[in-house]
């Protein structure tokens, strides 16, 4: 009886916490409905294999493409030049190209999961073609891992590091910075400041500068550890790396502050920030391609800041490249920063 009462009371308290109810029941269902709807599209293939150049020029090439036709791999045949451009933009997960008498497959290091899958299917199709022709010892298609900037690293962890830095930054901006501000406001820790002549922008900028230096220290430690433990090093200019990171930090911090202006309570803030964080992370196309998402979505997510930011970061860190091709992307990040800071300043309340 005692146990039953305790059990019922736990349920009552839980069901009265509206934020907990939302996160436990509504949010996962919304997520499922959202992604289910976006990626439904019947039996559409999940993996795109870019076919570069004149694979069709040879008979074995034509046979291989024919063998790939009924598989879940979607073929996208492009000229060598167009394929190269697509590869460089980081949108291709795997690419098939002619090499000597046979073929070669390149897998994008950043989209390894999807790329490897497409490569395996290509491998099997190739074996099937050879089996049909019979007789000879079967050959394998050589598969290489490469970044969009054509960097090869002996160490896969090297490719993970910039992604880790970026997600870390985004979660710090969206979760800790904003959350701390909402909860401080909730507890009345800012009210005492409201009766002083301290200007709001000084307070906000002071916090952003503090977080900026914290993030730099944190990233520096991760880079140092990466170097000491795994021999991972920055391939590009440290100035560019620092510049890109400062911009990204500013952007996500400002975003956290701006969101904090819209939440009354910390529970409310948790809801808003999560609702933004997951879509930004999943839809930015940096962890898997959106090949099977509807066209409008692929175009809409271009304006999200995570993708251009991470692309620039990876270009510098892994490819040792400059930022020449990333001007437009970084401009998007800068625009987000400016808008978010303006909104944060406008919405900021002491109490």
């Amino acid at each position, binding site marked *: 009886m005692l146990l039953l009462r305790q059990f019922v009371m736990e349920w009552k308290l839980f069901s009265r916490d509206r934020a907990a109810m939302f996160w436990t029941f509504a949010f996962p269902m919304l997520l499922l409905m959202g992604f289910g709807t976006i990626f439904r599209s019947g039996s559409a293939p999940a993996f795109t294999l870019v076919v570069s150049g004149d694979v069709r020029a040879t008979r074995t090439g034509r046979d291989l493409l024919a063998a790939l036709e009924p598989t879940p791999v979607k073929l996208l045949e492009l000229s060598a030049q167009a394929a190269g451009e697509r590869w460089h933009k980081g949108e291709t997960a795997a690419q098939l190209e002619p090499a000597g008498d046979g073929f070669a497959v390149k897998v994008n290091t950043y989209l390894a999961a999807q790329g490897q899958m497409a490569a395996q299917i290509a491998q099997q199709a190739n074996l099937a073609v050879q089996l049909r022709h019979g007789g000879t010892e079967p050959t394998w298609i050589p598969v290489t891992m490469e970044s969009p900037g054509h960097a090869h690293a002996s160490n896969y962890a090297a490719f993970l590091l910039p992604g880790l830095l970026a997600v870390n930054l985004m979660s710090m901006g969206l979760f800790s910075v904003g959350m701390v501000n909402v909860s401080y406001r909730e*507890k*009345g*820790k800012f*009210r*005492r400041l*409201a*009766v*002083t*002549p*301290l200007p709001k922008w000084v307070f906000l900028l002071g916090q952003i500068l503090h977080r900026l230096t914290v993030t730099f220290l944190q990233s520096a430690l991760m880079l140092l550890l990466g170097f000491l433990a795994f021999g991972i090093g920055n391939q590009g200019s440290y100035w560019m790396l620092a510049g890109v990171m400062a911009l990204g930090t500013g952007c996500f911090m400002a975003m956290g502050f701006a969101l904090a202006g819209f939440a009354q309570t910390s529970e409310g803030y948790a809801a808003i920030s999560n609702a933004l964080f997951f879509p930004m992370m999943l839809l930015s196309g940096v962890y898997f391609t959106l090949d099977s998402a509807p066209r409008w979505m692929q175009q809409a997510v271009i304006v999200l800041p995570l993708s251009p930011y991470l692309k620039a970061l990876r270009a510098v860190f892994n490819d040792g490249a400059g930022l020449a091709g990333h001007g437009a992307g970084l401009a998007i990040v800068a625009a987000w920063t400016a808008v978010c800071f303006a909104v944060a300043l406008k919405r900021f309340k002491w*109490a």
Partner: protein
Amino acid sequence: MTEALRVRGIRKTYPKVVAVAGLDLEVRRGEVFGLLGPNGAGKTTTLEMIEGLTEPDAGEIRLLGLDWRRHGRAIRSRIGVQLQSTSLFNKITPREALTLYGSYYPKRRSAEDLLDLVQLRDKADAYHITLSGGQMQRLALALALVNDPELVFLDEPTTGLDPQARRGLWDVVRRIKAEGRTVILTTHYMDEAEALCDRLAIMDHGLLLTEGTPMGLIQALAIPSVVELTFDGVPPDPGPFRALLGLPVTVRGDFWEIPTPDPKALLPDLLEAAETAAVPYKQIHVRRATLEDVFLHLTGRSLRD
């Protein structure tokens, strides 16, 4: 200019309650002015509107001759505020807090000076979270003085403190007044209002009931004295005694209360009536009326109700 504060017809309505229903106030420079009333009377809302934390729905507020809408920054530089609960960061020390807040103002007092004033020198470098309730309140008071303000607001400065800590805080308030500052405080303790305030206003249900000096308000009651008969346990029905005495008798907790303009004349009659009615009282004592009685007279309720 002798006026520190002038308030005309301020109102504040929240979705479910009228917090302040049209209020006029005037506070002269150099006086300690008290806003007295039970919890929920609208004292804090009134104070917050005056301090610029809450915008009034209607009415006019002038502090030191300045208007919030035009001179916000100037006003903030010249007033000091102690909020009802000052929530500071857990791991800031009093010395750091005083230095930081001082840096927000063009004119400031040294942290050392303030630490001495509120007797926190030996806790100057302790984390805020480790201070006692009284020490936190004194730090909050010191923070309110960090800019050498002309006008100081104290919202329930002694609520939750033990009697000794309260006395200590009263001394500090008296020192602030002696330095020539104007002090506006809210409290729901009558003894505090009597001990500290030059003038006070009594509020209830968002309205001002009366204002004046503590003495003036008490003397304005026609019945400046009260006789109390205390009992062991529950007092008996005062009916027969009341009939004999011919005066109102009110039962309060474990005693009877008989207000009187002239205790000297009343006492013989009262003792005789008690004897005749065989009232089993334990003690009898006569006290002068307090602000509590003023409030009771005005509202029919006790301040603590």
